[in-house]
């Protein structure tokens, strides 16, 4: 029987009611009396030297409050990068300044040059049109290989080259080379992991406000982590101490990574609010979002896999060029390194794994985490090269994976991580069962009879979520801790407010976090509210990304609730005149073991706040506890994904007939929400595989700068998904045994789709070994007909 509440129940989401009735409160819905509007004049060229900016005409135009250029921010810091990568020679990465407004040079199309604040948005926009920026264009640096060539134009004059870092992980390249040289077979694959744009449906918004009465600031912003924004912007950019800076991220319309970072517009609106003595609001248009939200992926990779005669993997050697764009976004440097290299062992026992990554500056929008963040790039290259190797050696793609699966845990990989649990054969079995793999040949024959090519593709992914512990990530270069916080405030009559440092922007925390507390105490979920998104009323937390919220934030809630229960038991023992050791809690009632003496939850909580009959000599009144949880390790979800496609040989169009995901997320709190997360991730992964591509022309102009040009997955591009999470190997080191599910769909699906298309083409007699994503009809057709 499905549960109707607590852990494991598909509780309906309480947040839905406000979203379904138009009562959500997103940042653009916030308007403060007297607010002015900001508009940014952005670079129209990819690279250029600013000779002068003439704002004189604009300053006199109707409604203009103030016009800002870089010189107004001379006292401010640059937008900081939160992770310092150390290169293979022990040197820190090259880290250029990222000014709020362009200083001397513009370095990508969309780079903000001037900020105009006016009474209305239209007036700000009109004034910006009257500003004359004299720019001498410079040939932009776009191709990563060319960027690293001797004598290449530099994106930043003050740096020694366009190389941000040259980084190794795992075995040395020489060790891998030695194995390659003597191996029975080596499979090589060169590929591009296409640049993507996260495109949450809500564009970014920032509203800055300053109170002269209290000399304090408030920033309302579309953020996945308001505390991180407060710390970065306050301490590194604007020099505002935390107690004078409140950051509020109210309802946020999706993030997918792109709303993790501290952006220039946030600092601008906060700063300008004091300068103008008015609240200042900026709302991104979608066109602006395409050239100012951090992009994702954009790797160029060569991977080699050495195998013995039985298809056992002997060594992996991978070289990747990772595009950083023009500046280092908040977590950009960590994505191709610690979130990518560490996953290169996959699910396999390969004894030698050697990873090299060179991060490169180019005159493009900064690149940072996008759903999966490094892990999709690792999974894609590994699951593609494994498939290619299987074909080359004549081994079934399922079988070659099974021969190499890790089966004993914990398992220390050659690339710095230790998997705690998993059962990869189980998820593979589940995938084959749910996708009716056995019936594929019959279906393929039917397709053939209809003039279509049918293919089946598999991938089996590993993911690392809840990046931690803080002391380890500090050694790896993180400039922040990666714990999470929770305050559980029990009210006098027993209702509870939980203040979490996590942030929900679609994940349903308000429902699932309440389920956790309800389960622990044995009370109705409706008695519990989850508070998030405001630094003024939540403890310092690190926010939501990397599928960390339940594994890290949920664990903090468990720890704080345990403290609550410890204290409540003391109070109950006092009220029941019993020993604390004899107190048991069940269904919200404390009883003395072996007796019928009991006291209800609400009576205990009332005693805590009306302590007339209370052990004041032993414990304080009140019932409120805070916990900070710092995990011992990452969590390692895994799963088997299968995609069945039909390719139309006349047009090259790929149709996804079915997609099956068999995941192991450990324990699951709300199955409905987990399945929704996977379904959404699958659509994004299928989007990457078949539709989405962020393209620049040879001048650095963004060709895919609107929804007319950037192909978002639509309802008729995807099928109904088969999603299963019944294989559960609970995480061994967090109190909930959960692993995280937010990114899996986007990580596991692209290689499954591409493997399926290659399978279809090869079955159709086309000797196509690889096609770079997106597998649009023209690319597939060209591959078939070249």
């Amino acid at each position, binding site marked *: 029987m499905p549960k109707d509440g607590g852990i494991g129940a598909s509780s309906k989401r309480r947040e839905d009611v406000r979203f379904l009735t138009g009562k*959500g409160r997103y940042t653009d819905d916030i308007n403060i009396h007297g607010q002015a509007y900001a508009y940014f004049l952005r670079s129209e060229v990819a690279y250029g030297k600013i000779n002068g900016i003439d704002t004189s005409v604009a300053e006199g135009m109707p409604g203009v409050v103030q016009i800002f250029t870089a010189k107004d921010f001379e006292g401010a810091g640059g937008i900081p990068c939160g992770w310092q990568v150390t290169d293979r020679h022990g040197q820190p990465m090259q880290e250029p300044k990222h000014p709020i407004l362009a200083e001397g040079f513009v370095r990508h199309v969309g780079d903000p040059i001037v900020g105009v604040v006016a009474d209305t948005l239209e007036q700000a926009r009109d004034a910006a049109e009257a500003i004359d920026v004299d720019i001498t264009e410079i040939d932009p640096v776009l191709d990563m290989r060319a960027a690293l060539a001797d004598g290449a134009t530099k994106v930043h004059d003050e740096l020694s080259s366009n190389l941000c870092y040259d980084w190794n992980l795992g075995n040395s390249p020489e060790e891998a080379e030695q194995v390659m040289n003597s191996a029975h077979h080596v499979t090589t694959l060169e590929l591009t992991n296409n640049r993507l744009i996260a495109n949450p*449906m809500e564009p970014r918004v920032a509203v800055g406000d300053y109170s002269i009465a209290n000399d304090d600031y408030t920033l309302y912003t579309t953020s996945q982590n308001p505390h991180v924004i407060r710390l970065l912007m306050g301490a590194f950019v604007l020099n505002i101490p935390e107690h004078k800076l409140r950051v509020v991220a109210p309802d946020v319309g999706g993030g997918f990574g792109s709303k993790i970072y501290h952006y220039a517009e946030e600092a601008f609106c906060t700063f300008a609010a004091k300068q103008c003595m008015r609240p200042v609001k900026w709302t991104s248009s*979608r066109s602006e979002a395409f050239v100012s939200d951090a992009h994702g992926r954009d790797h160029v990779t060569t991977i080699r896999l050495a195998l013995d005669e039985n298809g056992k993997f002997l060594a992996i050697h991978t070289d990747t060029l990772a595009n950083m764009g023009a500046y280092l976004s908040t977590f950009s440097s960590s994505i191709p390194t610690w979130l990518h290299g560490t996953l290169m062992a996959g699910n396999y026992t390969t004894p030698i794994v050697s990873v090299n990554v060179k991060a490169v500056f180019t005159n493009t929008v900064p690149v940072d985490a996008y759903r999966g963040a490094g892990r999709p790039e690792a999974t894609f290259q590994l699951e593609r090269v494994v498939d290619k190797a299987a074909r080359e050696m004549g081994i079934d793609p399922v079988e070659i994976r099974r021969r190499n699966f890790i089966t004993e845990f914990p398992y220390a990989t050659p690339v710095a991580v230790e998997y705690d649990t998993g059962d990869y054969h189980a998820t593979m079995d589940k995938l084959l069962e749910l996708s009716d793999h056995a019936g594929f040949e019959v279906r393929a024959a039917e397709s053939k009879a209809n003039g279509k090519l049918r293919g089946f593709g598999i991938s089996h992914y590993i993911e690392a979520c809840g990046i931690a512990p803080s002391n380890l990530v500090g050694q790896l270069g993180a400039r922040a801790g990666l714990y999470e916080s929770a305050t559980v405030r029990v009210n006098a009559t027993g209702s509870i407010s939980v203040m979490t440092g996590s942030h929900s922007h679609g*994940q349903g925390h308000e429902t699932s976090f309440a389920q956790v507390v309800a389960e622990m105490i044995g009370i109705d979920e409706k008695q519990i509210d989850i508070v998030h998104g405001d630094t003024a009323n939540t403890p310092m937390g690190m926010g939501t990304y990397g599928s960390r919220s339940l594994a890290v934030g949920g664990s903090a809630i468990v720890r704080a609730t345990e403290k609550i229960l410890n204290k409540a038991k003391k109070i109950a023992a006092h009220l029941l005149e019993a020993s604390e050791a004899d107190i048991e809690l069940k269904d919200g009632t404390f009883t003395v073991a072996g007796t019928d003496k009991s006291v209800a939850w609400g009576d205990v909580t009332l005693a805590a706040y009306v302590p007339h009959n209370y052990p004041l000599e032993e414990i304080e009144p009140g019932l409120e506890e805070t916990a900070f949880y710092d995990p011992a390790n990452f969590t390692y979800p895994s799963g088997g994904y299968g995609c069945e496609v039909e390719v139309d040989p006349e047009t090259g169009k790929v149709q996804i007939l079915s997609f099956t995901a068999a995941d192991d997320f450990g324990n699951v709190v709300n199955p409905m929400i987990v399945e929704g997360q996977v379904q*959404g991730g699958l659509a994004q992964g299928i989007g990457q595989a078949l539709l989405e591509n962020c393209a620049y022309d040879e001048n650095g102009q963004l060709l895919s700068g609107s*929804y*007319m040009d950037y192909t978002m997955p639509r309802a008729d591009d995807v099928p*109904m998904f088969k999603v299963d999470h019944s294989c559960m190997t609970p995480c061994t080191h967090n109190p909930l045994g959960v692993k995280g599910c937010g990114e899996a769909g986007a990580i596991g699906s692209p290689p499954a789709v591409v493997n399926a298309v290659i399978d279809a083409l090869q079955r159709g007699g086309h000797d196509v070994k690889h096609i770079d994503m997106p597998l649009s009809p023209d690319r597939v057709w060209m591959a078939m007909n070249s």
Partner: protein
Amino acid sequence: MVSVSMNVNGKPASGEVEGRTLLSAFLRENLKLTGTHIGCDTSQCGACVVHVDGKAVKACTMLAAEADGSEVKTIEGMANADGSLGVVQQAFQDHHGLQCGFCTPGMVMSAAALLSENPNPSEAEIREYLEGNLCRCTGYHNIVKAIMAAAGQDVSKIAAE
């Protein structure tokens, strides 16, 4: 400036707007009906879909002045008279047809328009009708399922929740 007046969610509404003011801006800024969302600037995303004289319209493709004299319905007008969720809204909650909620108003308005035109649509018809509504969170699975359920279809075989 032009004067516009219309019936919005059954109540008269009027205002003075610039001729270029879009219906979406009039609803959000003049009437403070912020449930209608702006997700793009090329009329692609559908977060701003409302009903004008019973037809689904992207409110960013219409001037407020063009809606003068019309009956307009927004997401704020979709609940039952007693405040409980309407059939489509309830189906979206029951089947987890929303996550971040930003595309949701447009999805619900499109879904309601579809069901008034075609009370028993097939899965393919639903997917085709939603061509103009982008969702980045759900992968559309549960949106399609919710609309099928709102049409009274048995969706229990599609996937467990």
